């Protein structure tokens, strides 16, 4: 994720600061150099970095260290405040009828993002339609129509028609009844004058509420100039950063935000149509400083899970068998990739740096547990206590696992049961209200 590694390089630099409440100039300068390096490695624009680091230097030295904080904490606060500034404001995206135009460089992920965005509006209960105005790239029409078909998204396109403006006009007329219209356009870069002119023509014909600039998280220092050209040509209302599931940090896309004076609207985190998230700078910063992003987690939970999914009724009645646990495993999968879920939990998954390997292991473990449970009878699932040695052997053979794995599952179940018992008894206090709601307690 953007700046995630920045977090660790910053921590490294901050470690150099003595735990005193004075910051001497030399230390501050050293630190600023480290910060500059870290920001540049994240592809943040050089000019932005210089501005940012100057502010940090000024603030770190000038501002009084607040009582109760040491120098390290003071500087961290200053650094994160400045980072929050370059992330820009949040984008107001009302959930109502509107037209959205997608623009960007070749290969930045416009078409995939178009489908993802339509799916997002569908989940929110609106009726989106997608119009394909990419008349240039071979296969663009098929790509979008296949994506739409596979995900039940209404689609409009005219194969063979090279006039993008005409297609858009026809599409808007034809698909009047839909409330959100998303237009995918040809990929282009700032120096392709004809294509830039075409984009302006579409903009004029369409007069969209939103013009989203789609940016690859891996883009480097060119981002600034490209974004400026798009901004000057049609005006950009929001930036979408794609491909954040790799190792790219998205710093280049941040310069697009500052160049177009907009903010990050969405981030793309995978190849599937559901891999899109609304971006909220506050939540992001709090995730960065290890406070988690409960708001995003809650949104996810509310979108995808009903109390029935979690077996809430039964759990509230004090009933928690393997059946309920199975339901909960499935519910977790519905929220989204485990990795994203854990990142949203406060303190970055309880203060531990969890690696991709660990995520995969946990994910695989849950899958294995489900397979094992599939080999149990209903009676066993309802009454886990009957699982004796011979039943465990049978389940192990039936699920292609071994008895240790089955025993491990049973141990895990007992632990969960105990934890839920404690929760119900009100022994765990101080849990955030939202989190309680997640476990189905009405508050």
């Amino acid at each position, binding site marked *: 994720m953007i700046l995630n590694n920045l977090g660790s390089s910053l921590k490294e630099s901050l470690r150099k600061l003595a735990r005193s409440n004075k910051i001497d100039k030399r230390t501050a300068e050293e630190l600023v150099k480290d910060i500059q390096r870290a920001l*540049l490695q994240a*592809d943040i624009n050089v000019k932005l970095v210089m501005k940012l680091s100057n502010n940090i230097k000024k603030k770190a030295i000038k501002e009084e260290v607040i009582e109760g904080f040491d120098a390290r904490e003071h500087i961290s606060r200053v650094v994160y405040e400045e980072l929050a500034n370059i992330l820009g404001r949040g984008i107001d995206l009302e959930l109502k009828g509107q037209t959205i135009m997608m623009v960007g460089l070749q290969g930045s992920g416009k078409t995939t993002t178009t489908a993802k965005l339509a799916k997002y509006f569908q989940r929110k209960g609106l009726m989106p339609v997608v119009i394909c105005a990419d008349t240039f790239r071979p*296969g663009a029409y098929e790509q979008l129509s296949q994506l739409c078909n596979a995900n039940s998204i209404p689609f409009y396109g005219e194969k063979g028609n090279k006039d993008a403006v005409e297609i858009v006009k026809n599409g808007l007329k034809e698909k009047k009844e839909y409330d959100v219209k998303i237009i995918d356009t040809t990929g282009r870069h700032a*120096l392709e004058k004809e294509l830039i002119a075409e984009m302006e023509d579409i903009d004029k014909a369409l007069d969209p509420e939103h013009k989203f600039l789609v940016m690859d*998280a*891996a883009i480097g220092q*060119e981002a600034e100039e490209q974004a400026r050209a798009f901004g000057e040509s049609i005006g950009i209302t929001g930036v979408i950063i794609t491909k954040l599931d790799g190792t790219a*940090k998205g710093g280049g896309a941040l310069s697009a935000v500052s160049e177009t004076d907009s903010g990050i609207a969405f981030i793309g985190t995978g190849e599937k149509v559901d891999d899109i998230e609304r971006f909220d700078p506050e939540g992001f910063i709090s995730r960065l400083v290890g406070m988690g992003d409960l708001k995003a987690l809650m949104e996810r939970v509310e979108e995808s899970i009903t109390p029935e999914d979690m077996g809430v009724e039964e759990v509230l009645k004090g009933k928690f068998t393997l059946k309920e646990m199975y339901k909960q495993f499935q519910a977790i999968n519905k929220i989204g990739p485990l990795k994203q879920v854990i990142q949203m939990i406060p303190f970055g998954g309880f203060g531990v740096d969890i690696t991709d390997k660990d995520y*995969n292991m946990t994910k695989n473990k849950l899958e294995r547990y489900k397979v094992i449970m599939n080999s149990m009878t209903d009676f066993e699932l309802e009454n886990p206590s009957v699982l004796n040695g011979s039943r465990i052997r049978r389940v192990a053979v039936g699920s292609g696992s071994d008895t240790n794995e089955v025993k491990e599952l049973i141990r895990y179940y007992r632990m969960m049961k105990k934890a839920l018992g404690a929760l119900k008894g009100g022994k765990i206090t101080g849990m955030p209200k939202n989190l309680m709601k997640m476990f189905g307690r009405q508050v």
Partner: protein
Amino acid sequence: MFKSLRDKFASFKHSIGKAVHKKEEAEGIEVSSATTTEEVANISASLSIDEKKTKKEKVGLKDKAKALIIERETILGEEDLAGPLWELEISLMEGNVALPVAEEIVSNVREELIGKKKRIFSNTDKIVEDVLKDSIKDVIKNDGPPFDEIISTGDKPVVILFVGVNGTGKTTTIAKVAKRLTDNGYSVVIASGDTYRAGAQEQIETHAERLGLRLIKHQYGADPSAVIYDAVEHAKAKGKDVVLADTAGRMHTDSNLMRELQKIKRINSPRLTIFVDEAIAGNDAVERAKQFNESIGIDGSILSKLDADARGGAAISIPYVTGKPIFFFGVGQRYEDLIVFDEDWLLGKIFGEE
């Protein structure tokens, strides 16, 4: 293209020039006041710093003293260079060179420049440019055979596998390479190995039709190894010279998809595995090139989208981390927009006039 790097290097040369000038002035004053003890103290102080900071420092006290006192040449020390070198590092990164690579270049330049004797009035710019050029050349040098030679000498059919992350331009690049090969008189067959992404098959099919080439494809969801295998069999049966195999774009962090590539490679043993990336990528270019190289092994790269006003830093970074050559640059949307890469061409672009 490369304009930014060119400008930055000019400014670096200038600031080194300034450092030299300042040093000369400072020494002038020292001579007039004729305080030899101070000078010796200066020399030993700068030397101890040098020793601490760079082990490879080759200039001994004798050389320095000789140059300083007897020959009246200027020797650049660590402290003279700190500022300009930091500027150079920033400029490299501004030119999209990845951090570890920028650091390597800067440290080469530092090593070369420190202790460099410089006769007063000789051309500082020239010295600095040479050092910088050599350092970059060091980073991008490669002794492997050029692409055309590999094709002409390879056993037919020569199988070329194209890999890379999503949206870097693999499919378009294949079309360009196909065009180049057919223009050179080779017969080409294309394997539609991207059976995953929506529209991928139609995209490459259109290119194949336009170029009048045979395309081997299966359905979406088919095993890409099998598609490519069929294409290779077809090429063998029909006596085709080259098989160009497309694959689905994938994130280097997705271990399952990387394993799929390993399988494709194992089954089809391509003569060349080419990593396609875009010239506009920043620091991540290094990370993914490294990971693709480590997990499947690549023989070279092609950089696309250089026409998007790219600064070309990736052209320096990628050969550095992979140790493999860049074969071509993609510079536009037309099939002809493919440029053969060589070091001198790149250096000429960076240091030349235009």
